[in-house]
């Protein structure tokens, strides 16, 4: 899963002195006895493309709606650009939202839809027309100004919704599943465009999505949410390579989890006794761990290699039998059963069209991986 950003994004969240543009402080939203958002604190910085990722019902949309002002937190405060907006109605907030259903006004044409927000703030007509033209050019719908929403395709409506939300030059643009209603091809293409537009305008984007690939592709950082709480906040690469919880590890991509306990730790090398794997595994982990502590090891399938023979000096070598093969074209996924009955997944790129000795069912294989490829989860 590659990031489409051409430049390594600046990392404003690394600079603690900078005032974040969004400060969410201990926000809780309760509907009856149900905690939709449960004590969430989050800092989002100017110019970020920030994603709230999670499965449905995890509270991501509720959090976004509280930023827009459609829901009021049960407790906690929300600051935008230093201003406490917790009790400010949506029509006075310096944010705009692109709705999942687009919510275009059916009785207005494209140009009037885009001009709507500008009219509300009383912008002069000439300036307004100029801004509308500029927005339509930005999202490439110049020729559709006079069309009504029902005369547009899904992709065009999405662009109108984006242009309308951007027209007022908000400090923050909130996007609720912006690509959810598009088909796969168009969605991939639009991901790149959204990132380009965001980089060009420098507006902070906060996106709600349930699609991990979408979040990985576009975001500077991702907040993974689960049952109203934030599981982990990190840039896509860190979230994938160094998940901090079992949920985060298994939500993003595929993962092999090994349960075990710490035997000993030398510097940043940890030896873990793992009965499922039939022995001890070596991983790199710099945080201090106590011997005897129960941990989970997370190993991504693509980090596992097939090795030709056992090497007495190398760690992390397992013997198993291939039970399942899924051929996906670019890669194949193999399920290997270990002596303990535990199944381990690994993937191989199909480098050659016709491999000379392809791996096959019920074949015994040796698997190995380096100590750097595995993560330690304590939560």
């Amino acid at each position, binding site marked *: 899963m590659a990031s489409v950003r051409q430049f390594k994004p600046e990392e404003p969240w690394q600079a603690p002195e900078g005032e974040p543009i969004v400060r969410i402080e201990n926000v809780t939203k309760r509907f009856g006895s149900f905690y939709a958002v449960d004590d969430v604190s989050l800092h989002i910085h100017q110019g970020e493309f920030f994603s709230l990722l999670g499965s449905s019902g995890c509270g991501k949309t509720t959090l976004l709606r509280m930023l*827009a002002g459609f829901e009021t937190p049960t407790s906690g405060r929300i600051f935008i650009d230093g201003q406490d907006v917790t009790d400010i109605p949506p029509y*006075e907030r310096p944010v705009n939202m692109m709705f999942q259903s687009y919510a275009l006004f*059916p009785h207005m044409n494209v140009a009037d839809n885009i001009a709507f927000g500008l009219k509300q703030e009383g912008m002069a007509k000439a300036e307004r027309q100029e801004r509308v033209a500029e927005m339509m050019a930005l999202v490439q719908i110049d020729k559709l100004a006079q069309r009504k929403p029902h005369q547009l395709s899904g992709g065009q409506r999405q662009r109108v919704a984006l242009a309308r939300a951007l027209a007022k030059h908000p400090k923050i643009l909130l996007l609720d599943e912006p690509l959810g209603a598009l088909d796969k091809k168009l969605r991939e293409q639009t991901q790149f465009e959204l990132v380009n537009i965001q980089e060009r305008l420098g507006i902070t984007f906060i996106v709600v999505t349930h699609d991990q690939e979408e979040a990985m592709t576009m975001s500077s950082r991702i907040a993974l949410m689960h049952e109203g709480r934030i599981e982990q906040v990190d840039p896509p690469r860190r979230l994938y390579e160094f998940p901090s919880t079992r949920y985060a590890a298994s939500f993003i991509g595929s993962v092999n989890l090994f349960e075990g306990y710490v035997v000993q730790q030398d510097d940043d090398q940890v030896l873990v006794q793992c009965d499922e794997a039939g022995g001890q595994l070596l991983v790199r982990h710099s945080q201090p761990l106590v011997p005897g502590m129960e941990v989970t090891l997370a190993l991504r399938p693509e980090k596992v290699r097939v090795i030709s023979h056992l090497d007495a000096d190398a760690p992390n070598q397992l013997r198993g039998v291939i039970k399942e093969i899924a051929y996906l074209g670019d890669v194949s996924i193999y399920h290997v059963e270990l002596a303990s009955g535990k199944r381990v997944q690994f993937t191989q790129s199909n480098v050659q069209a016709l491999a000379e000795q392809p791996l096959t069912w019920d074949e015994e294989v040796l698997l190995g991986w380096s100590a750097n490829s595995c993560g330690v989860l304590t939560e």
Partner: protein
Amino acid sequence: MKLKQYLPPARNLIIAVPWFWLALFFLLPFLFVLKISLSEPILAQPPYLDLIREIEDGFVTIVVNFSNYQLLLEDSLYLSALLGSLKVATVSTLLCLLIGYPMAYAIARSPSHWRLPLLMLIILPFWTSFLIRIYAWIGILKGNGLLNNLLMGLGLIDSPLEIMHTPLAVYIGVVYNYLPFVVLPLYATLIRLDLTLLEAAADLGCRPWKQFLLITLPLSMPGVLAGAMLVFIPVMGEFVIPDLLGGPDTLMLGKLMWIEFFNNKDWPLASSLAALLLVALILPFVLLRHFERRAEEAAA
């Protein structure tokens, strides 16, 4: 299965039913009315001369008589009756909309378990006969009626208010009776309104009352027009309410038609009045269709 080829498609059969109904019970009677309106009144039973008359054996003449229409245009009584009907219909349509819109809005926005009971309350009066409900208003509005007794009992007035047999009584009766016809179509439009549109408007800087003016109201126009037509058209021909609640100065077409038909036994003149009224009413219908088409385009 062979038979199917020789029968018209089921769709056409279903569409044919309302067409047949309209032709039999609307178009045909109207043609009778049109025919009578072009004949001469006589003292006989029926009280008009047939258009097609046999003079000698085998010879038939058709005598068309436009004098009824001429009289309608010349005598200012009929014009003022038309204007009177127009005025009552317009004012009561506006009153019904002003009262009915907030009612429909409130029902559409109330919690879902409240909506059905509230709608039932709107429809409930229809379970009592129309005439009984109008007579009930006489009981309320008359000199020593419920309202006057109440107001005098409370000491708010010294002598009874004169409401019965005034235009005010007609408006009260008409608005009371036709209000549900406005509330129901408006409710149907407002309940379908996508509330996300209001959130989008708020997000773009629109205060609640402007959200109503710029989004809710324009998008509920189909309901407003349907409700307006459902009141305006029948009130134009209404005669029971002005007859029972109105006074001698309440001049309306329906009442006049009644007088011409039953009191003066002038069927041809009454028929020409009916024909003119129909023409006056078809116009708003054409307008309604026009607006409906535009709304359909907007909603699609």
